[in-house]
């Protein structure tokens, strides 16, 4: 197991490096400069600015020193658009917000989804099953950017019980809608996956054996069926996590929560290259780390996998 974890980490490092190099190259070939304003700058002024940001050195050297500064000092350089602020500064402000509601949404989608799926599977072909399947099919067509306006319409404009946006240090009323909007479609997918894999497991011979031995229903479900039935769910956790990170862009824009998503879109519009790269690289690192955890979890749950 230890060697497997080490191998997985060794795969993760080139992944992140590839991401860094790719996004750096992309930005280098990009037409238009962040310093191109309405009036063209005199060439010597432009050269001075470029030297200030190290843009006059060879490409490989630029990338190497960029990576070096990130690894050694967690320094992503200055932001082009937000003057006087460093990317590190902005990222440290935005990430805690995103991670707070993202983590909650992740928890909600897994817990509600798995519960719904199990209930549907053990009450197969009853009204409860149809209800759960109905919810999960319907909710699949309700991605975050559809849920967000619907929630605001109902809870802010009609009922007037929840604030339509803002963060306020993450107080509960400000958290409810972002978490629901972000989790709905993933909750639905997890419920569907859980249901079908639970049904498959419940048809397996070892469950029949457990029944024949007279084990109680709850015991069969929770100590025998649950673990193998969770395997497909575990492999869906990676995509769910990526979905939470990506969805945060919509949540931040729509609810003005002040997370990284908002900075990302603004940076994209302002061509604020260091900020875009910083956010892309950090989300990449998070995703790679999370996938690593999921793989290890998978190997731990599934006794057939030996590394």
């Amino acid at each position, binding site marked *: 197991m230890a060697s497997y974890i080490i191998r997985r980490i060794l*795969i*993760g490092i*080139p*992944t992140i490096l*590839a*991401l860094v190099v*790719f*996004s750096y190259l*992309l*930005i280098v*070939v*990009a*037409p238009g400069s962040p310093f191109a304003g309405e009036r063209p700058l005199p060439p010597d002024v432009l050269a001075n600015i470029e030297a200030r940001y190290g843009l006059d050195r060879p490409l490989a050297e630029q990338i190497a020193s960029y990576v070096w500064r990130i690894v050694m000092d967690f320094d992503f350089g200055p932001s082009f658009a937000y003057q006087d602020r460093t990317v590190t500064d902005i990222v440290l402000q935005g990430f805690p917000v995103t991670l707070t509601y993202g983590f909650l949404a992740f928890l909600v989608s897994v817990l509600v989804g798995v519960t719904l799926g199990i209930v549907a599977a053990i009450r197969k072909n009853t009204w409860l099953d149809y209800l759960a399947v109905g919810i999960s*099919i*319907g909710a*699949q*067509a*309700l*991605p975050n*950017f*559809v849920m*967000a*306006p*619907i929630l*605001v*319409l109902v809870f802010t*404009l009609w009922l007037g019980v929840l604030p339509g946006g803002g963060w306020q240090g993450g107080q509960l009323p400000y958290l409810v809608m972002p978490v629901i909007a972000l989790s709905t479609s993933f909750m639905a997918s997890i419920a569907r996956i859980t249901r*079908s894999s639970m*049904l*498959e497991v419940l*048809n397996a011979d070892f469950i029949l054996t457990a029944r024949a031995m007279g084990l109680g229903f709850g015991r069969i479900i929770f100590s025998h069926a649950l673990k193998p039935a969770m395997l497909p769910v575990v492999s869906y956790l*990676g995509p769910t996590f*990526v979905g939470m*990170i*990506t969805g945060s*862009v*919509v949540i931040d*824009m*729509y609810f003005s929560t002040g997370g990284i998503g908002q900075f*990302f*879109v603004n940076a*994209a*519009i302002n*061509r604020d290259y260091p900020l*875009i790269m910083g*956010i*892309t690289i950090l*989300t*990449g690192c998070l*995703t*790679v780390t999370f*996938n690593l955890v999921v793989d290890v979890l998978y190997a731990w749950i599934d006794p057939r996998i030996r590394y």
Partner: protein
Amino acid sequence: MIFSVQARVDTASKVDPSDGRSLWQDSRTRFLRNHAAIGSAVLLLLICLYALLAPVASGWSGEAIDWNVLGDVQSKGRPSMETGHLFGTDELGRDIFVRTAMGTRVSLMVGVFGALVAVIVGTFYGAVSGYIGGVTDSVMMRIVDILMSIPFMFVLILLLMVFGRSVILLFVGIGLVSWLDMARIVRGQTLSLKQAEFVEHAVVTGISPLMIIGRHIIPNLLGVVVVYATLLVPNMILYESFISFLGLGVQEPNTSLGALINSGASQMQYGTLWQIGFPLFFFISTLLGFFFVGDGLRDALDPRDDQ
């Protein structure tokens, strides 16, 4: 003996007894018996007809501004037969009936075209990787693993910023980031096809590997590919709408369902709910339609006894 067989064939189907039943015929019967899938296929057809014909049928164009309505969209811009605005107008006095059709058309095009790119790239990549095997295979699959753990929406937004926003780039970009699952599925299928006798025969006769992949492997993959392509289309539509919701995708005066939902959401507080309602209805119907047809195709082509 003969009589009983004859009788069973007669009652079982109207197929000419001498023909027997092929796997495809079996699949077709199963698909036609799936009411949800058939209903969805009809629904999708109707949506396509609407998207194509609405701009012709309506007296308004998607860009023309109805000056009578402007300034009092809340009351005069309502959906009504008299003004000819069946779905009402947006805050600029443009006809929602036609604009929703335009948006649906763009979304459907992105969906189909993106899925096509994903299918072509993914099938070829997966087939080559699986057929050649060995070191090539593991390197190619590692690359897929690496690409999979990158948060793609960020890279796609990056691409759109660098190369300018255009529908074509959006098509290609979404397609190019979506071939990874396809490549994995196709590779798995190729691995088992490689063992088939007709492939061995082709190898023995000295046909080149590329020819074998093109003439013998890929045609046999088509069933799986078609099913996953149908399930890819709604995902493409989701991606595109996500990007357009953020205002980074399709640009005015052209529109897409995501952009329409976004502008509808921003006008919600003034009570012009038709502006978000109609695009939302077509968005959700299209997604659900593709989900059901895809599920129906999968069940028809890949029969399993659970469900």
